[in-house]
């Protein structure tokens, strides 16, 4: 009795394994590596949800090259070693011709050598560290802005806000350090004095020591670079320590809606750079895809606070799908070639790639829009950028 049921189980398993490749030929697979668990889980899941919306939208419109696309989403567990493992699995076992990932700059930098080794193109949807597109990896195509672009876009606001002395508090990884370096460079060039530059562990929850030092420094503006969880805590703890400087968060993973709910009063008066402002969809370059994305997001009951993150996955999948169309076949080399000619009207703006990095092995970089919003009276409002 027992042995026969085990045999049946194996037979079913075997049949489904054999059937697998047959089904697979009907679809074009696209690999996605995101931190679905661990420290960056919230953001990684939003990006994956956005990617799913793009998948369904593309398939509803007939797919790509007459075939449906199929996302294979792997969890990097917010860990660089695991991230490399997901890419290896996607390329070797799932044989995906292109990958989107990997949210955090540290994770993206970790998987880049693998991408190069297997010559499979990577569309980077979130990471902002400059190194990603300047290290000579010709399989990297980034649709998100670099920290430098963000800092340059911020320049006109230095005088407008009357910034005289700035302090920094950033997470101690490629994202935070890169952003603080670019912003401080831009501010110095514009005559702003730099006070203290503080860092924190990406997992830390108590910033009283850093904030006490920042208070003693006496700057008028504090630039904070980290993900939304730590931003929430910093806003709350700054209020507890009566730090009355203007707080500006950079990097675009700051989810102002979530800050309003979770930091409450403490969020009032703070500024945030975002790359998609769902509160004013009319100001974006392409309101049409933005509204389609927002409607579907709401229909699926996803967290509204995730809108500022999910669009990255949405745009990333559309970019890869468009490149496959141009390539005419789902093969890594052809898609890499095609990405240079790809133009997508996305939520990020008009996505197309310029060359960055050492001549001969350039990476692709898109130039998206940057917006600065303010939280005032428990609401997200325009601030003038």
């Amino acid at each position, binding site marked *: 009795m027992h042995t026969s049921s085990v045999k049946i189980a194996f037979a079913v398993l075997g049949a489904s394994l054999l059937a697998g490749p047959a089904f697979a030929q009907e679809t074009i697979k696209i690999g996605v590596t995101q931190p*679905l*668990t*661990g*420290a960056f*889980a*919230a953001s*990684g*899941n939003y990006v994956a949800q956005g990617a799913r919306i793009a998948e369904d939208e593309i398939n509803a419109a007939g797919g790509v090259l007459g075939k449906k696309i199929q996302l294979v989403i792997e969890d990097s567990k*917010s860990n660089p070693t695991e991230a490399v493992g997901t890419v290896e699995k996607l390329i070797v076992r799932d044989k995906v011709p292109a990958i989107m990932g990997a949210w955090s700059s540290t994770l993206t930098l970790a998987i880049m050598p693998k991408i190069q080794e297997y010559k499979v193109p990577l569309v980077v949807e979130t990471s902002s560290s400059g190194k990603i597109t300047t290290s000579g990896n010709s399989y990297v195509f980034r649709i998100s802005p670099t920290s430098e672009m963000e800092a340059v876009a911020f320049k006109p606001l230095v005088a407008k806000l009357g910034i005289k002395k700035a302090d920094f508090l950033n997470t*101690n990884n490629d994202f935070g350090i890169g952003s603080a370096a670019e912003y401080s460079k831009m501010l110095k060039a514009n005559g702003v004095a730099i006070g203290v530059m*503080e*860092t*924190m*562990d990406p*997992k*830390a*929850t*108590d910033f*009283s*020591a*850093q904030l*006490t*030092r920042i*208070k*003693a420094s006496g700057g008028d503006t504090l630039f904070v670079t980290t993900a*939304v*969880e730590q931003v*929430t*805590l910093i806003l709350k703890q700054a*209020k*507890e*320590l*009566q730090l009355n400087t203007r707080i500006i968060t950079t990097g675009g993973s700051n989810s102002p809606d*979530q800050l309003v*709910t*979770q*930091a*409450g*009063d*403490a969020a009032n008066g703070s500024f945030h750079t975002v790359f998609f402002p769902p509160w004013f969809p009319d100001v974006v370059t392409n309101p049409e895809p933005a509204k389609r994305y927002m409607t579907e997001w709401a229909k699926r009951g996803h*967290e509204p*606070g*995730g809108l500022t993150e999910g669009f990255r996955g949405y745009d990333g999948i559309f970019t890869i799908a468009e490149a496959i169309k141009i390539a005419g076949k789902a093969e890594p080399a052809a898609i890499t070639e095609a990405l240079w000619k790809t133009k997508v009207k996305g939520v990020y703006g008009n996505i197309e790639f310029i060359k960055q990095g050492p001549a001969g092995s350039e990476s692709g970089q898109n130039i998206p829009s940057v917006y600065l919003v303010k939280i005032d009276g428990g609401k997200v409002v325009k601030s003038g950028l």
Partner: protein
Amino acid sequence: MDQFLQHALNAMILGGTYALLGIGLTLIFGIMRVVNFTHGELYAFGAYMMYMWVMLIGANFMVSIVLAIALGVALGAVIEIVLLRRLRGADIDTTMLVMIGAWIAMQNIEQLAWSGVAKSINSPFPSAPLVMGAISVSWTRLFVFAVAVVLIAATNVLIQRTRLGKAMRATFQDREAAALMGVRIDTVHTATFALGSGLAAAAGALLGPVFVVYPTIGDLASLKAFAIVILGGLGSIPGATIGGFILAFMEELGAGYISSGYRDAMGFLLIILILLFKPTGLFARKERIG
């Protein structure tokens, strides 16, 4: 000077919760010889229970703390009875592997149950801080500190003055001899694990409203608790209490005056120094072996 006072006050408040975390872990190790990797998850569990009672059910804040701690005690007892009781007599590596498995499973269950999005818990205390001259502290943190001190004192009374505490101390000194004298080792083990878990859940329930709650908060709590226990000496309650405060002061002053990038390194540097000169930690008690 103002800056120093503020740093010292921050460290004092932080030290209270560090001590609370350390005591629970040191008790379990000292008495049961179990390296409890689920300690951080009990902390996260306490925080999520607080979220559930206060934000979803709408219970009174103080009542919610008591309920969260009670549930932590219950979960600790369940873990002990279901997992650890069967492993009695197994070598320390086997137990350690099982506890690592339990840790990973619990963290993923939290992720599944509550999603990865951080939750915040409203506190009934005024959001404006208590201001004393140039230094300030939030009312919630003061409350957390006060409760932590009360819990630490109560644990000490329990261990030193009650019959159960006496049985625990006897088991710590010599498990076999205690068993021969009629101490119910099973009961002592369940009570110890439940108590240690309850203290971790208490720390989570208290700090949940101060910070935000997400599935991986337990990792950092666990790491700090291990550091404190090693610093203070394995199995020593005064060691864990003082160790908690030392670690907090070291981190706070190190970050404040040397470099915030090395905040966590400061604490561990101190641990290395202390272990160089006192390999058993600051307050490790002599125990009979064999």
